[in-house]
């Protein structure tokens, strides 16, 4: 097994699939669909092989693959995986396969382009998680943008163009400034060492210790890119628009993986590369996270549109991720990681569920819904399940992350934890209120008007959600499955930034 370039495989298999699809006749929708699903499943299997062979006890990167790329700048093709990234990779491959399956029904036009876009999206996403070279990372980072731009822009809703351009521009501004930061960092390395070799190598840079001024600004550059992606208040406004307009599978990936790119970036790059700056910036970030947590939840309360509600809930939930990372405690970071995985599963599922109802009603207005429980029992049950998971019911995945973050934050400063914990109440409020309005009560006139079109979920739809249910339960009851993966890298990370925290007067 060890001879196979597993990481390269898992990154570029989807690209291979996309290439294959490019040669399939355009009107053969089913061939294309199955080819895409097959590709994503093979990728998924490869990612599982990776997971099985992964040794969680090591902190360092495994399966590292290195090849020279542009030696003049020390740019390499370098992939590697540690406990943090492998979980996200598997999440990505899983959600991609599910999303592709979920697109079988809704996507009826330009299936070929759609599937190619989706597979290329997977390439970018997996690549971001695996890249160990700053340059390579940046390439994958931008690669994610284009397919998503097309997916929202072509297969999206009525106001899709506005949403997709906003999404791209917003993300691009962040990432371009990140590019400046990457280059500044590399150059600073070059000046200090006199060589370009290793100037883009994550592993080399990580232990390098840049000078404080550079750290401060480079951190700002990276942070902006990631904060927009997460998204943190006040950079979040692209998210509701993008979610509302994106097709269902797009929303799933957007919420499930794309937002994680931001969290991952903060954890992988912002903190370890610039520990001093991270400590310096932490108070601001914590405050913004808290605002995001509370604000997202409060705004979610009054959303009239299901997708917008879930989108704002993402703002709230992802606030826990940034909060957890920047309190610099083991529990906080563990919680942030757990929260990312859980949010990926749960919010992904919620978007799938919204998609199911949208496909039947072509509407997502909460006010027009009501009484689904009687007509769509299976749907209502699964919906309820994920609503509960999302509000952090213990025993399901969403709880562990949130609670760990609260514990970590409490360790940092109790008041912070108190504000964050407000989300427990608010989350219950907006989710249950929404659930009550959609599922309980008498069947609304609008829904009654749909008559026999209002059918319960079919087998394919259940199949898309079943793995997510299983994961939500499994990670709720056995969070150790994940925390063990994260443990070593997180300890490593915290040990690395400990001097900076100490220097800043922390514990």
């Amino acid at each position, binding site marked *: 097994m060890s001879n196979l370039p597993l990481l390269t495989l898992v990154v570029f298999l989807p690209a291979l699939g996309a290439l294959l699809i490019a040669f399939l006749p355009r009107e053969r929708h089913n061939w294309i669909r199955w080819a895409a699903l097959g590709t994503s499943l093979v990728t998924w299997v490869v990612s599982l092989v990776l997971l099985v062979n992964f040794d969680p006890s090591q902190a360092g990167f495994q399966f590292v693959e290195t090849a020279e790329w542009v030696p003049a700048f020390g740019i390499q093709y370098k992939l590697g995986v540690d406990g943090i990234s492998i979980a996200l990779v598997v999440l990505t491959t899983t959600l991609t396969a599910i999303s592709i399956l979920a697109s079988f029904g809704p996507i009826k036009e330009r299936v070929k382009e759609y599937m190619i876009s989706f597979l290329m999206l997977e390439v970018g996403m997996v690549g971001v998680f695996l890249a160990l070279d700053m340059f390579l990372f940046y390439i994958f980072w931008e690669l994610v943008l284009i397919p998503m731009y097309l997916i929202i822009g072509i297969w999206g809703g*009525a*106001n899709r*163009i*506005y*949403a997709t*351009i*906003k999404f791209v521009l917003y993300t691009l501004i962040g990432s371009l400034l990140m590019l400046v930061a990457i280059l500044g960092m590399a150059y600073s390395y070059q000046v200090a060492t006199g060589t370009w070799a290793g100037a883009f190598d994550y592993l080399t840079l990580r232990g390098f210790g840049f000078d404080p001024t550079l750290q401060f600004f480079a951190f700002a550059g990276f942070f902006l890119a990631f904060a927009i992606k997460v998204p943190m208040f006040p950079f979040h406004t692209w998210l*509701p*628009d993008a979610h*509302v*307009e994106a097709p269902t599978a797009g929303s799933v990936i957007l919420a499930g993986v794309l937002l994680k790119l931001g969290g991952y970036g903060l954890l992988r790059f912002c903190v370890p590369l610039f520990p001093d700056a991270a400590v310096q910036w932490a108070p601001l970030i914590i405050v913004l996270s808290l605002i995001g947590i509370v604000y997202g939840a409060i705004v979610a309360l009054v959303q009239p*549109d299901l997708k*917008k509600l879930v989108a704002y809930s993402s703002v709230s939930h992802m606030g826990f991720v940034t909060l957890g990372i920047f309190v610099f405690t083991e529990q906080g970071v563990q919680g942030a990681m757990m929260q990312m995985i859980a949010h990926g599963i749960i919010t992904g599922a919620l978007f799938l569920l919204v998609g199911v109802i949208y496909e039947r009603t072509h509407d997502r207005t909460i006010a027009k819904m009501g009484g689904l429980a009687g007509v769509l029992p299976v749907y209502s049950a699964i919906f309820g399940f994920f609503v509960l998971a999302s509000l952090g019911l213990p025993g399901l995945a969403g709880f562990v992350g949130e609670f760990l973050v609260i514990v970590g934050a409490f360790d940092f400063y109790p008041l912070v934890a108190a504000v964050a914990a407000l989300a427990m109440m608010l989350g219950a409020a907006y989710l249950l209120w929404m659930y009550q309005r959609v599922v309980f009560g008498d069947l609304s006139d609008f829904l009654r008007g749909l008559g026999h079109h209002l059918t319960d979920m079919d087998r394919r739809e259940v199949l898309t959600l079943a793995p997510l249910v299983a994961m939500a339960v499994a990670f709720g009851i056995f969070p150790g499955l994940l925390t063990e993966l994260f443990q070593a890298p997180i300890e490593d990370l915290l040990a690395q930034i400990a001097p900076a925290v100490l220097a800043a007067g922390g514990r």
Partner: protein
Amino acid sequence: MDLGLPPTVPFLDWAWDDLLFLALAGVMLAAAIFVVIGRDIVRSGLAMMLAFAALAGIYAMAGAVVVAAAQVLIYIGAISILILFAIMLTQTKSGPADLVFHRQWWAGLLAAIGVALLMIISVINTQWPLRVAERLWSPTDEVAMLLFMDPLYVFALQVVAVLLTAAVIGGVFLAKREGLTDPGERETATFQQLRPTSNLERLPRPAGVDAAQADQA
């Protein structure tokens, strides 16, 4: 050649050269000004020839007799004539001032005065490091030797040759009248469309507020 003139201009105590210089300069500037402000463009053309002639005289005074000759031959003999022909081809004689001058001529005047002031101030305040007090002469033979012996000018001459050829080939193509009507549709057909219309795609207002309206754009 001794005309028995006094060494300097009487009363003014100028060198005769200076007087000649002033005269030529005066003529040249006057002609040049007429070129740019004359209403009748044909006369402007003629004034230009005059200015060039005066300039040729100044060249000669500055010791560049070859250039002076070339000035007469090329500028007066070729370029000016060319321009006059072009005037004839395109011109409907003189017109009122607003046809001659752009409405913003005064701004142009200011700019020109500015340029003049700047240039004059800067050149006067400059100690040209290489200058000598005495005016030098450029003997024709030396110039000729230089032109045909110095590799630089040999090369330059070749480049100029190509340049002129290119100009001629292109000029002929452009100026050549073709009797045939254009087989293809002309882009002029779309003049109206070229005027900027304002159905620009602008960022609409927040989607939640007027999504439907924004989408119509």
